């Protein structure tokens, strides 16, 4: 135990309550909990690479384009058909005079997830390639803010609910866009899980 302890103990702040926790060398598979709020402050087994997050963010950006340009489904009643994209509802709500609602849908279903993936891509790519690109710290802050607006999975659920509802009124046909939307939801979720803020911060310090 004595040989493990570092000569100068480092203090790290708890990500949740910001209490100062003393960093002790951890045995394998151990976790350091915050003494005040109990949140995991540090794990000894942490992902060693940001490459998976980079790959997922890249895939996510491509899927974002595909999901937004491919029709998701069409609804048919007595020979009249209406097909929709993610953005169709935004335009319809805007035309009906509900522009704040349209704006909210546009921001949380299209703009914020795209910006989130783009900021994550930028920061992670800089870390993986060891390039000190400009504005990395600001981008990291933005990624943190946009994370809670990453609502593609919620939109996918809403699409599923609407299809089930519409199915009782007419004929619903799925299109390829639905597949892109489903894969994008998984991809966006996994990106946020694999994107380790702490590790990125450490890498950025090394870069500077």
């Amino acid at each position, binding site marked *: 135990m004595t040989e493990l302890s570092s000569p100068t103990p480092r203090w790290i702040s708890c990500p949740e309550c910001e209490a100062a926790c003393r960093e002790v060398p951890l045995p394998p598979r151990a976790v350091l909990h915050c003494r005040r709020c109990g949140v995991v402050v540090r794990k000894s087994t942490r992902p060693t690479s940001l490459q998976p997050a980079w790959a997922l963010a890249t895939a996510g950006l491509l899927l974002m384009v595909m999901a937004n340009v491919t029709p998701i489904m*069409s609804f048919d009643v007595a020979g009249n058909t209406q097909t929709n994209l993610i953005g169709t*509802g935004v335009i*319809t709500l805007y035309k009906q005079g509900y522009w704040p609602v349209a704006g*909210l849908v546009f921001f949380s279903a299209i703009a914020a997830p795209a910006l989130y993936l783009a900021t994550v891509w930028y920061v992670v790519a800089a870390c993986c390639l060891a390039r000190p690109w400009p504005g990395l710290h600001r981008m990291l802050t933005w990624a943190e803010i946009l994370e*809670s607006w990453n*609502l593609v999975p*919620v*939109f996918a*659920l809403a699409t599923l609910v609407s299809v089930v*509802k519409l199915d009782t009124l007419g004929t619903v046909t799925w299109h390829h866009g639905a597949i892109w939307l489903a894969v994008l939801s998984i991809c966006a979720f996994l990106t946020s899980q694999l994107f380790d803020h702490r590790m990125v911060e450490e890498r950025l310090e090394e870069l500077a």
Partner: protein
Amino acid sequence: MNSPPPIPSSDHLRLQTCRALVIAGIILYVPANVIPVMTMTVVGRVEPLTVLGGVEELYHSGLPVIAGIVFLASIVVPFCKLATLSWLLIMHGSTECQQQRATARRIVHLIGSWSMVDIFLLSVLAAVGQLGVLASVVAKPGAFFFAAVLVCTIFASESYKPRMIWQTREPLET
């Protein structure tokens, strides 16, 4: 060593913002649930639907599971979020139930975004419901209030940082 760390002045602003947003959210929650969010025309029959009305309709079309999900996401979740945030604000600065408050905040933060499901549902239904008298969906003023409640709760829970639960007047035990 035993004196409490000074509370940054930006946290006072955060606290005030959160209070204002929670009060606005509670007030808006009433019209959001009473005023119809859309009208649905099916084969010439026009039907105004509130959020709860939409859930009931799903239930009666033989989709109890889907109805349950929408009920939880669009009525229970916003309510729990407003209730939890009120609790956090009322208890702010006290040393009681800090663990419980931290857990409640974490849960609410995790499930909070699912309340957007009803707004997205309106958007998808409005997009394909453009078939005139056969089937059409038109947004109604309730949608404004509902969207406003969601925006208030999202920004309120963003402005109350978890560290603020642990800011007390009393010195920390060390």
